[in-house]
């Protein structure tokens, strides 16, 4: 098959050129303007693609240098990256990471008690929701508690927590009050994370101490009225003064969490920069630390929202604000990368918080199911309720496993986790929504009542599928990132083909692999040795699914070439498969660990794992089949046409059944 395709050199060379850009591969700096512009194509998908090509860096202050290295790692250890190539890379997923040493574990255990106690006894989520702000004494208590500087290094006044430790604490916050969670998260997870990741020594020493104590609150300012998902299109400007000592910033940002409270803002603005090669002036995004005290910074009234009402959301205006040149965060013109890195770095926190949220609502639903009697029996004895409870449990288990696997990977120094982080955000936000929705359902009318506290959580959760990268954009990101890596892999195969004799071994192997795959035989991929023997069956399902997934990715690349960027119906389904596959692997890892350690819950976790894998495998196979079928093209085209007609009509097209 491979040899036959070789003769149709066009397809391979096309897929090789999909994301080919000499600058990318050589690691040279690239202009911010999208490189993937398809002739006559749209730029809307470019954000996802651009984010894909801008490899996020690890947590650390030498990020700037790392950011310029090859955007495509030769050998990525990321499971997700390799899965798109139909390969299994186990380093980051097996065994389940143990990210804390004894001292860190002990310290963390001491922190859990007081934080839980504070949220149980002092914080009043219903009050915060009704007042549409976090009560003053609660804010004070949180500041005293040290909750505003969890990851700031201890020598600058923070707690210096690792990602895993941070995750454990935000899990507690998430299970009690998401409004407070967002106030804290907007402050430290994104608000001043840029200073932690990209700040120089002077900036860190100047700003972090007061941010750690909560004396100063921080906010992340990227979104504008005309720029949401399309972040690269922002219009706020920062023009360098002739003397070169300061920038003048003008623009307005909307929907900024903590916008009305913050003293320190991480602001993204367009700065005119000179292209070093061509000498022409181009507008590129630069990240700035802006202090309210610079003057010219104002904010609008708090927005009235569906949920997370306690969190302050406001417009922020910059009018001729003088920003000193030493307030540039990272490199001039490197702002987009800074933004994507910040968001990428904080994503695991969301999964952790939502894992806690799910536990919180589930306990209410389970309590209800265990005690409510109808038709003479406790309702938990009925299949309908049992299925709901079981599904909730699995969703929570997967989310929790993802959160701690990713935080564990990050703490171990992994730099390649952007796909996994995006997957976890998508999964966690959708799982939490479903779990809360079903919890209300189990509780019946009581679930709908304010007093039970679950309807508030439902309202709070809706935004999680929207902000920090909408799930729709993140799905494109996951798929495109995967395609890029698979495409490069194919490109290297294409190179090998130019010298078939010298690469005979490699080519023979690839040929055999494809032949086996086509025949439905195993290609030798296995998880044996990585997972506990009792999970062998689920392991098999996972491997089969990965094999077919890898195959369909290749087929799609060959079929669509660089136009794959525009095939959003396809990309969405590819992403869904990727999410399911990562979820399968994550639970296999966690359940394996429990079995190996002989935990009391091991058999129960085995059941969770097996059940999840059975259904996930079927979903993946179904999607793969759809993607291969000719029917899918018709399906997608129909949807395209339906949408076009309805949009043109400004509403539904079909006349009323009654004729009027």
């Amino acid at each position: 098959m491979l040899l036959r395709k070789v003769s149709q050199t066009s397809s391979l060379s096309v897929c090789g050129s999909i994301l080919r850009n000499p600058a990318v591969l050589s690691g040279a700096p690239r202009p911010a303007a999208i490189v993937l512009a398809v002739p006559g194509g749209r730029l809307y998908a470019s954000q996802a693609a651009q984010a894909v090509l801008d490899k996020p860096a690890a947590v650390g202050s030498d990020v700037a240098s790392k950011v310029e290295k090859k955007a495509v790692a030769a050998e990525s250890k990321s499971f997700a990256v390799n899965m798109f190539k139909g390969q299994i890379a186990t380093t980051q997923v097996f065994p389940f990471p143990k990210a804390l040493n004894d001292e860190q574990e002990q310290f963390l255990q001491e922190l859990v008690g007081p934080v839980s106690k504070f949220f149980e006894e002092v914080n009043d989520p219903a009050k915060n929701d009704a007042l549409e702000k976090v009560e003053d004494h609660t804010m004070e208590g949180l500041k005293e508690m040290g909750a505003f500087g969890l990851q700031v290094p201890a020598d600058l006044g923070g707690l210096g927590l690792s990602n895993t430790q941070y995750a454990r604490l935000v899990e507690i916050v998430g299970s009690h009050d998401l409004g407070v969670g967002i106030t804290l998260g907007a402050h430290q997870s994104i608000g001043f994370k840029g200073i932690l990741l990209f700040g120089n020594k002077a900036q860190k020493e100047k700003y972090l101490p007061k941010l750690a104590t909560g004396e100063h609150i921080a906010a992340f300012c990227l979104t504008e009225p005309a720029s949401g998902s399309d972040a690269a299109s922002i219009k706020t400007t920062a023009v360098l003064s002739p003397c070169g000592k300061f920038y003048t910033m003008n623009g307005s940002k909307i929907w900024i969490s903590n916008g009305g409270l913050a003293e320190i803002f991480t602001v993204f603005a367009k700065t005119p920069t000179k292209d070093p090669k061509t000498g022409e002036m181009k507008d590129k995004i630069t990240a700035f630390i802006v202090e309210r005290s610079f003057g010219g910074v104002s904010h609008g009234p708090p927005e009235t929202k569906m949920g997370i009402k306690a969190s302050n959301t406001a417009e922020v205006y910059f009018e001729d604000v003088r920003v000193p040149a030493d307030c540039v965060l990272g490199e001039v013109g490197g702002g987009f990368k800074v933004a994507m890195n910040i968001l990428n770095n904080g994503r695991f926190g969301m999964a952790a918080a939502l894992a806690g949220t799910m536990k919180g609502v589930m306990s209410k639903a389970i309590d209800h199911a265990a005690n409510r009697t109808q038709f003479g029996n406790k309702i938990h004895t009925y299949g309908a309720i049992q299925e709901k409870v079981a599904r909730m449990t699995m969703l929570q288990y997967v989310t929790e496993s993802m959160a701690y696997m990713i935080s564990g990977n990050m703490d171990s120094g992994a730099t390649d986790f952007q796909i996994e982080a995006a997957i976890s955000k998508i999964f966690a936000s959708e799982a939490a929504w479903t779990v809360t929705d079903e919890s209300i359902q189990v509780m019946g009318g009581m679930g709908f009542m304010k007093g039970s506290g679950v309807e508030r959580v439902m309202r709070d959760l809706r935004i999680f599928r929207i902000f920090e990268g909408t799930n729709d954009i993140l799905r494109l990101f996951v798929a495109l990132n995967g395609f890029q890596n698979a495409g490069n892999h194919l490109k290297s195969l294409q190179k090998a083909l130019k010298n078939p004799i010298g690469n005979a071994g490699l080519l023979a192997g690839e040929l055999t692999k494809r032949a086996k795959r086509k025949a439905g035989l195993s290609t030798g991929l296995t998880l044996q040795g990585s997972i506990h023997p009792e999970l062998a069956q689920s392991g098999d399902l996972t491997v089969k699914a990965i094999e077919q997934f890898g195959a369909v990715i290749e087929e799609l690349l060959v079929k669509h070439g660089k136009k794959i960027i525009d095939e959003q119906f396809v990309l969405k389904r590819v992403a869904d498969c990727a999410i399911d596959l990562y979820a399968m692997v994550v639970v296999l890892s966690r359940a394996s660990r429990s079995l190996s350690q002989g935990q009391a819950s091991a058999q129960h976790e085995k059941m969770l794992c097996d059940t999840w894998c059975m259904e996930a495998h079927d979903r993946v196979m179904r999607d793969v089949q759809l993607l291969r079928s000719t029917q899918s093209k018709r399906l997608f085209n129909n949807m395209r046409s339906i949408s076009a007609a309805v949009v043109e009509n400004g509403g539904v097209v079909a006349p009323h059944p009654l004729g009027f």
Partner: protein
Amino acid sequence: MSGRVLVGVKRVIDYAVKIRVKPDNSGVVTDGVKHSMNPFCEIAVEEAVKLKEKKLIKEVVAVSCGPQQSQETIRTALAMGADRGIHVEVSGKDYETLGPLQVSKILAALAKKEDAQLIILGKQAIDDDCNQTGQMTAALLDWPQGTFASEVSMDGAQVKVVREIDGGLETIKINTPAVLTADLRLNTPRYATLPNIMKAKKKKIANVKPADLGVDLTSRLEVLRVDEPPQRQAGMKVETVEDLVEKLRDTGMV
């Protein structure tokens, strides 16, 4: 006066946990169960730290008797403001039979060794509800005691204690050195803040064995059996007083 206060803190099963009896009825299930500092001990620590903040005493030493995990309880006390800790190692069978008599002997020995001016304890522990350790400690040392304290104030070398007793409140004045036991309304314990927990890591916890203090841990008590309280039976409603008297006679209660 040394200005040193010894505070006893006990690690107990958390108040919110549903207690379960072991299948062999030898005790309650403690493995894997959430433990925390006895609530009355928290109040005792808070009072000691308050006295230090008012500069009425100089040093707060937190003491706990028990296995390795007791150190967590001491650390909580350090996070609340205690200056250092002493962990008296007692584990295994000795720990199972450890009671007020043994603990009070240990505390008495430590008080002499540390030249303590005050010993503040919780009035009782929520697991055994003995309400004896403070009183026994005072007796062993021949020190005055101010138990069930709901208000404490220092007056030179004396302490004024307002005690909650069955009839109301009683105010007494006692000489130091003395033993005080804290009751519920003495104060509201502060939340341990995370930065304080971090600072507490640097504070010292000394390790001591009961034998080093010359204390014999042999228990005079033997637990024969532990049972759950009987299930509460459903009640009965009666219409008239006559019915009530009849029912009481029938069941042999009158």
